[in-house]
């Protein structure tokens, strides 16, 4: 057996310097950091399963009511959705750079990156709000005021789609329910993320993450990227069903 040299060195190193963030019950800084990121990953597992349930519901009804899902999906705003995808990717990119900035202990850069992450996150939510508003005006929000008129009689709305039979048109409500449930749950995660971002930015500003202690930034980065990934699936699944009947 080879002794694990790296770890022994590490161990010795940290026995002398006790950093302020070091919790008493961890033996080493290393142990604490790895426990933290492992814990974060486990939390993300629960998120996979949480969204997983909705993804399954989506899969089921998309196959059952494909025509309804097609026309309903075609009412979503692809440019806005695509722009939002880009915005979110950019936000994630800045987050990744933020982690790097923390790792190389550049305090100013870290703060800037966190702010950029936040700004793009907020931009995403803004676009989303605009989309929600559009759906509201079109009576596409499930519930009492939901209207299928646009799908049973598209010509009256200046659409070139094939009209749906009323029974199939009703099922567009399921699509929009899933649309709002999934993007809403996603947006909720974004909002929570942004609140945390404010807090982290403030702490970064105070220089808490400039000493090589990057765990909070790293772990938050995992969360933020996970939220991105969910959107990477939501976008094609919700916006891009059969986007070519017009040509």
């Amino acid at each position, binding site marked *: 057996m080879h002794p694990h040299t790296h770890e022994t060195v590490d161990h010795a190193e940290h026995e002398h310097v006790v950093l302020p963030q070091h919790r008493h019950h961890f033996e080493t800084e290393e142990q604490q950091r790895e426990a933290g990121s492992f814990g974060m990953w486990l939390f993300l597992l629960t998120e996979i399963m949480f969204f997983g349930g909705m993804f399954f519901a989506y899969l089921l009804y998309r196959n059952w009511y494909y025509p309804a899902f097609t026309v309903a999906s075609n009412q979503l705003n692809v440019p806005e959705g695509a722009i939002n995808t880009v915005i979110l990717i950019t936000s994630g990119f800045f987050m990744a750079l933020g982690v790097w900035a923390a790792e190389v202990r550049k305090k100013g850069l870290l703060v800037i990156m966190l702010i950029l992450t936040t700004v793009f996150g907020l931009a995403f939510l803004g676009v989303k709000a605009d989309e929600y508003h559009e759906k509201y005006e079109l009576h596409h929000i499930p519930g009492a005021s939901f209207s299928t008129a646009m799908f049973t009689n598209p010509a009256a709305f200046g659409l070139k789609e094939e009209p749906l*039979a009323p*029974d*199939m048109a009703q099922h567009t409500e399921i699509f929009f329910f899933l649309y709002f449930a999934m993007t809403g749950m996603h947006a909720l995660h974004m909002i929570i993320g942004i609140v945390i971002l404010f807090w982290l930015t403030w702490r970064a500003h105070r220089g808490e993450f400039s000493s090589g202690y990057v765990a909070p930034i790293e772990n938050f980065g995992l969360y933020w990227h996970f939220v991105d990934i969910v959107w990477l699936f939501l976008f094609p699944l919700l916006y891009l069903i059969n986007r070519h009947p017009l040509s």
Partner: protein
Amino acid sequence: MGISPVLWQFLVKWLHASALFPAEASTISPYTDALYFFLLAMTLVGLLLVGVLVFGFSIRYRREKNPVATQVEGSTLLEATWTIIPLAIFLVTFVWGALLYFRIYDPPANAMNIYVVGKQWMWKAEHPGGQHEINALHVPAGRPVQLTMISQDVFHSFSIPDFRVKREVIPGRYTTIWFQATTPGTYHIFCTQYCGTQHSGMIGEVTVLSPDDYQKWTQQSTSGMSLAQNGERLFASMGCNACHSGNAAARGPNLAGVYGSKLTLTNGSQVLVNDAYLRDAILNPSQHITAGYAPIMPTYQGQISEDGLIDLVEYIKNMQSNFRVQQTLMTSESNQAAPTTPTEGTTSETVKP
């Protein structure tokens, strides 16, 4: 006996009224019971084994007898034994249970069909001859009976313990069970799926009659109109015959003889027309468009009650030629006009005499 006479009477009455084993009143019962006894034996053997080991060792190796424990690491052989033997027993249970499952749920071809609609909180049985019963069911002994069941609201479950049959009654789709009662008598019907406040009141009685008595019962309790006849009226009053008149020029396909046939849909797939398909064709017509037709049929979702649907289905099932449709067209003219916007639940009621 030192027990007071009142108490004694109570005890006698109680013990009299209580059984430890349900009656075997259908052809399925012995099969179910056989598996049950096998499983009971398995449990007793397993329990005995565990009991003997635990008590045996406890007595043999209690501290007074065996002050010093001997450490043993384990034994792959022993562990393999008690992995494989239970596994084998469980697999036998699986195969046996699966065979029984298909025996219980595969109706024989010659079974007579009765419709059952469950709703909060009653059972409605509808015989093809037009006999309606609530929380009761009359069936002949010695004949396979199939129940085609549907729920109008939530999940219910139709259970006759003495027949060892039970199946969920699901909103929105037909399920079936079948049985062949052996002994005339009355047996409990329970709703076994929790369905709200009066779940425990959703009970009834199945009366098994000898074939002769059954014959008599059918004649006495008929209300005049068979299900198909009710369906025929509905067919007219809902305006189905406007499109399904059977004429060559009609906008909808001819429904005569459609039951049991295979239809080709516009998307190329083939479907067998059964009760469920007919029901779905009326409620969700656009989901399976018959090849060669335009998707113009309106949905009747929310306009016809489950009873009404059963009537329609039964009518279409029995439609063998266009003759009936033509006749319907005439009756509908002579009868009261069809309601323009039928409301749920009341439709079938108002149309029925």
